[in-house]
C-alpha cells in the first residue's frame, strides 16, 4: 500500500456543536476502517459548556509519538471565536474549512465554506451540522475513505438516528464534491451555462 501523508486536523467550534464527536468519528474511521494510526486530544473543561471547543486529530501510517498539534494541515472552524483563535496556526499550504453562516472573514482567505448549520436545519436537526461538516471535509480533502467514515458514524451516533446522520453525511459530502466540480469548471473558464 502506498504510504499516505501524515495529516494533522483541528476541528473547532462552540461547545455543544459535537466538535469532539466529529473528531472521534474521524479518528475511529481512520483506525477501524482504513487501518491507520490516529490520536485524539479533546479540550476538556468549561469549553464543553459553551465557548471555544477543540478536537485535535492526527492520522498517520506510522506510530504517532506526540498527540498535540501546533500547526494543523486541516482546520475546520464552526464558530467565529474558534476561527479567530486558530486561523493563524494553519500551515501556509493547509486547508481551511468553515461553516459559511457562522464564520465571517474580514480579509478574503483561501478557504472552503458550507452552510452546514443551515443544511442541518433543513434536514430537521440543527445538531447534525457536525456530521455535515465531516462529509464536507472528507469530500474536499480525501482524508479518509468515505465508506470508513460511514461505518464510524453508524457506530458513534445515538441508536435510531444513524439513517438521518448518514443522510447528513451524504449531504455534506455531495456539497463538497459539487464544490470541487464547480472549482474545476471555474478554472476552465465556465462558471455558468451560457458562458
Amino acid at each position: 500500500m502506498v504510504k499516505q501523508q501524515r495529516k494533522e486536523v483541528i476541528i473547532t467550534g462552540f461547545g455543544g456543536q459535537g466538535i469532539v464527536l466529529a473528531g472521534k468519528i474521524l479518528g475511529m474511521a481512520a483506525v477501524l476502517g482504513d487501518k491507520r494510526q490516529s490520536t485524539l486530544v479533546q479540550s476538556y473543561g468549561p469549553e464543553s459548556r459553551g465557548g471555544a471547543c477543540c478536537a485535535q486529530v492526527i492520522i498517520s501510517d506510522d506510530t504517532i509519538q506526540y498527540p498535540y498539534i501546533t500547526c494543523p494541515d486541516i482546520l475546520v472552524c464552526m464558530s467565529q471565536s474558534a476561527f479567530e483563535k486558530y486561523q493563524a496556526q494553519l500551515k501556509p499550504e493547509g486547508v481551511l474549512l468553515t461553516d459559511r453562516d457562522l464564520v465571517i472573514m474580514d480579509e478574503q482567505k483561501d478557504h472552503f465554506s458550507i452552510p452546514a448549520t443551515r443544511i442541518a436545519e433543513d434536514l430537521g436537526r440543527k445538531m447534525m451540522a457536525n456530521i455535515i461538516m465531516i462529509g464536507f471535509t472528507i469530500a474536499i480533502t480525501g482524508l479518509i475513505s468515505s465508506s470508513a467514515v460511514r461505518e464510524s458514524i453508524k457506530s458513534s451516533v445515538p441508536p435510531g438516528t444513524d439513517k438521518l446522520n448518514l443522510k447528513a453525511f451524504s449531504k455534506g459530502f455531495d456539497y463538497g464534491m459539487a464544490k470541487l466540480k464547480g472549482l474545476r469548471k471555474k478554472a476552465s473558464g465556465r462558471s455558468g451555462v451560457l458562458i
Partner: protein
Amino acid sequence: MDNIKIIVFLCNWGPHAAFQTMQENHDQIPPEVKMVRIPCIGRISKALLFKAFEMGADGVALVGCQSGGCRYGSGTVNGEINTADTREIIELLGLGKERMRLATFLPDQVEKLHNFLTSFSLDIKQMGPSPILPDAPFKAHSLSFEKISGILTKYNAYGCQDCGKCTSACPLALSGKTYSPRLLVNAIIGGELESEAVKQDIWSCLTCGLCYQICPSDVNFPAFIGDLRAEIFYADNSERHQAHGGFFQSLMRSMTTPALKPQTYQSIPEDVEIDQKSDTLFFGGCGPYFDVFFQNHYRVNSSSIIHDGLRLLNFFDIKPGIMEHERCCGHDLLWTGDHRNFLKLARLNVEAVKRRGIKELITACPECYRTIAYDYPKYGIDVDFKVTHLYEILENEIDKGAVAFKTLDQKITYQDACRLNSSPEIKDLPGKLLSRIKARDFAEENIHQQTSVCCGNCAWTGCDAFSKALQVKKLRQARGTGSRLLITSCPKCQVHLRCAMEDPLLGPELIMEITDLTNLIAKTIYWE
C-alpha cells in the same frame, strides 16, 4: 423509373393556361406528374402540401402566378411562405427539401413551364422514391355496444354520481363552452355516441385531468376519452377537429416509416458537448418542427429548450448521447385516437433506444416524459431503461449545493403543464426549482397544480374560440399578479399562449414575456 409520383398543385389562372397550351401542342408532359388544378396557391396550406408527402408523393410542386399577378393579391406571397416552411420541415424529416418546389409562370410562358416540369421530374427521379410509406388503409369497423360498454366499465363511468363536480373544474366549461364531462358520460351511457354533438364533445376534451382529480367516483375521464377516441377513430372518417389542418398528425404518421431518417439535430450549437458512446440519452422532442411551423408567428423557440437542457446537463458534467434519427414520442397520435400508428412509433423508438444499450433516457418535455414513462408500458411496450425528466436531475444536483442563481429583478409567475401534473414523481419539481430561483418576487398563488387553467389545447386537436377564451383568461390571470414574466415547462403551452398574445384587439393587454423554466435556469445558474 418506376412508380415515381409527383403532385403538381397548379393555379387555375396563370400557369393553367400555359399547361393547357402544352396539352394542345401535344408537348410531352412527364408521366409521373399528377396535376391538381386549384383556385390559388395561397390556399394550399402547409398541411395540404405535407399531406401529399404523407400519402406517398415523391415530389410536390406548387405552381402559381408570378408575384404581382395574383388575382387575389396575397396568393403568391402565401405560397412562398408555405413552401419555404414545408421545405424546411421535410429537410428536418430527412426527406430532402428539394422534393418540394415553388414555381411561378405567366399564362404565355409555356416553354418555361414545360422545362420546369421536365427538370423537376428528372431531379426527383434522381433522388429516388420517398422513404415514406403511406398509412395502410384500415377497414372501418362499426361501433359495438359491447366495446363502448367495456370502456364505460373499465373507467367506472357507470359509477357517475351526477354530482357535477367535474363540470365545475373543467377549464372548457369555465371558459364558457357548453361542455360537461358528466352530461357527456350520461349521453354515452344513454347510447347517443353516434350523435354529432357527442362526437364533437369527445374531440373537444383537453384531457387535462382536472375533473379526474376531483371526481368522487374516481372516473379517469382523460383515459376514458382517450379510449373512446381510439374507437371512433377507426369507426368512421368523420371530422376529427385537428388543428393546423392536421399537419402535426400527418408529420407523426409519416415518422412511423422505419426507413425514414429524421435529421432533427442538425443545428446543435457548438458549445454543447455530446457523447455518442454514453449510455445516457437525451430525448429532445419535436421542438425543431414547431419552430419552423410557427416561425412567422409568435416568436416560438422550442429548440432553445433542447439546447439549454443539454447545456445544463453539461454544466453538471453529464454528457448524454442523442439519437441521430430521433422520432416523435407519439403523444399526439395517442391522444387523437390513432393507436395503431402510436404503437408503431413507440416500438420504433424503444427498439432504437435498446439497440444503443441505453440505461437512462432524459427528456425536458413533459409530454415525452409522460408518454414514454407511463403510456408506453400501459400499451404493452416494454421500457427497460430509466426515464428521467430533466427537472429530476436539476433538483438533485442543485440540492447538492455549491451552485447559485443570478438575481432576477422581475416578478415571475408560472403556467402549470398538464402532462407534468399527471406524473406523480415530477409534479412538485417545477415549484421546488422555482423557489430556488432568485427572482424579485414569485407569484406563487399561480401554482395551482390541480386547479390550474390549461393552456387551451392538447395534442393539436379541438382548437376553437373557447380555447382562445381560455388562453386570454390565463394571460389576464398571470398579468393580474403584477408579473410580466411567465414561466412555462411545456413547449406547447408557449406556442398556445403566444398565439393568444397575437390577438389584434386584445394583444396589447395580454403581452408578457414567456420563457421556459429550463431556459431560465440555464440563464441564471452558476458555480459559486
